[in-house]
């Protein structure tokens, strides 16, 4: 191993630990800080750190889409909603933790599921090295070829959610 390879290995490991630490700290802060706007800002930092983790795994497409959809659209939407629902002149915007019990149950179930999947993975075997030059085209072909049914199903669910939201919003009229 030459010095260059060692260098890049050390750097990418360092990047992983720094990003993971930022992610965990911000994730905890999202659910603990009192101010709702601060919580959303920490959520944005958390999502960015996850995008950074994707980059260390050389999944650039996923990272960029993560920033595009979650940071650029979802976080902005959250902030927009907070400013519409609360008294706009109130700077405190406190967040309530009344659903703590339910949240712990959901998080616990999710953790068990992920743990189960991780246990089933064969970590000791080295993954076959594949060099992918154009991963966008590959993802496109997979989405509209092999996985066309789940893809269409997801878009159907999203459409249903959209229509549902509009129906609920217009109930009063």
């Amino acid at each position, binding site marked *: 191993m030459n010095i260059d390879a060692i*260098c890049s290995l050390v750097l990418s490991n360092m990047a992983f630990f720094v990003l993971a630490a930022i992610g965990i700290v911000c994730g905890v802060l999202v659910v603990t800080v009192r101010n709702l*706007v*601060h919580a959303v800002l920490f959520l944005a930092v958390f999502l960015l750190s996850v995008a950074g983790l994707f980059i260390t795994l050389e999944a650039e497409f996923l990272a960029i889409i993560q920033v*595009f959809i979650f*940071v650029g659209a979802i976080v902005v939407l959250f902030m*927009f909603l907070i400013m519409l629902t609360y008294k706009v002149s109130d*700077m405190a915007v406190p967040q309530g933790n009344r659903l703590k019990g339910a949240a712990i149950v959901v998080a616990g179930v999710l953790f068990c599921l992920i743990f189960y999947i991780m246990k089933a993975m064969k970590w000791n075997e080295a993954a076959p090295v594949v060099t992918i030059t154009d991963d966008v085209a590959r993802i496109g072909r997979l989405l509209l070829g092999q996985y066309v049914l789940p893809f269409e199903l997801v878009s159907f669910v999203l459409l249903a959610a959209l229509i549902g939201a509009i129906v609920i919003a217009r109930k009063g009229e």
Partner: protein
Amino acid sequence: MQLLFDTQQLVNNIQHWLAGTCELYHLPPCLVVTCIAIAVALALIGGFISVNAMMVVLAERKIAGYMQDRLGPMRVGPYGILQTAADAVKLLLKENIVPKIADKWVFFLAPVVVMSPAVMAYVVLPWSPGLIVCDLNLGVVYLMAVGSIGVIGIIMAGWSSGNKYSLLGGIRSSAQIVSYELAMSLAVIGVLMLAGSLKMSDIIGAQQDCWYIIKQPLAFILFIIAATAECNRAPFDLPEAESELIAGFHTEYGGIKFAMFFLAEYANMFVASAVCATLFLGGWNGIPGLPMILPPIVWFLLKTYLIVFLFIWFRWTYPRIRVDQLMGFGWKVLLPLAFLNIGLTGLVMVLI
């Protein structure tokens, strides 16, 4: 002069020289070259953003002056060419004021959050063959993703100021940018379908014979309109409408923090123009069919500043539109037209 034409060779020479120097001093190339490259790129981009903002601000004031039959700034330097330099010095020397009820940390970070995506976008701008900080495979998507972060800074500024006008500016901005971002991304898809790639250099390469403005005129118009809205410029400058919101989200900002917002606005305007020139006007290519008389970088800058002029022209020609008109126009006109463009492009591509 020859070097300006063959920038690929220039970049290769520099890389070769750096690698040689590293070998001479037994330094690990990956670390040293990366550090030097990042430092140089940041310095160049930072310098360019400042100089560009000063030049464009002066140009904007001069052009506005001539359009309104007056002279514009004339006092500082010959024909007022040092006016923006004087303004910049004034901004840097001003006292830093933070409102008493402002949320200090968010208030402090907002200009940074607005500025950093503007700088990040310069990473994929194709100046000339080989002269691009990083020719990402996902260039166009990267630009869109980075461009969508800036609005968080604007909302942060609006909320943390503790001022109702600022908050209204922030809310307007978030609604506007989310709506117009959609139209902009969909307009670009037509070009991407024709080029078959998301890489900036590939998209320019595909336009050697025919610029996409000829094949995608509708997409070009949609992109220009949406980009004007994304940059918060008139006639879509509702987030900072001075007559309604007394400058909106940056009412409470002064001195260097205001300068950051100002710089970011002009940096974003240059990025939007450069992307437009790259996607629709052939980037660094000369006019198809004619010999390449000018270096590619000159072509690129020429086309980009042409679009910048177009933005300035819009600002001093059209009156500001109302909020409901803005949202209606975005969702009911731009979006369906963008979908129509994608459908038509797909149909033509299948048939031909």
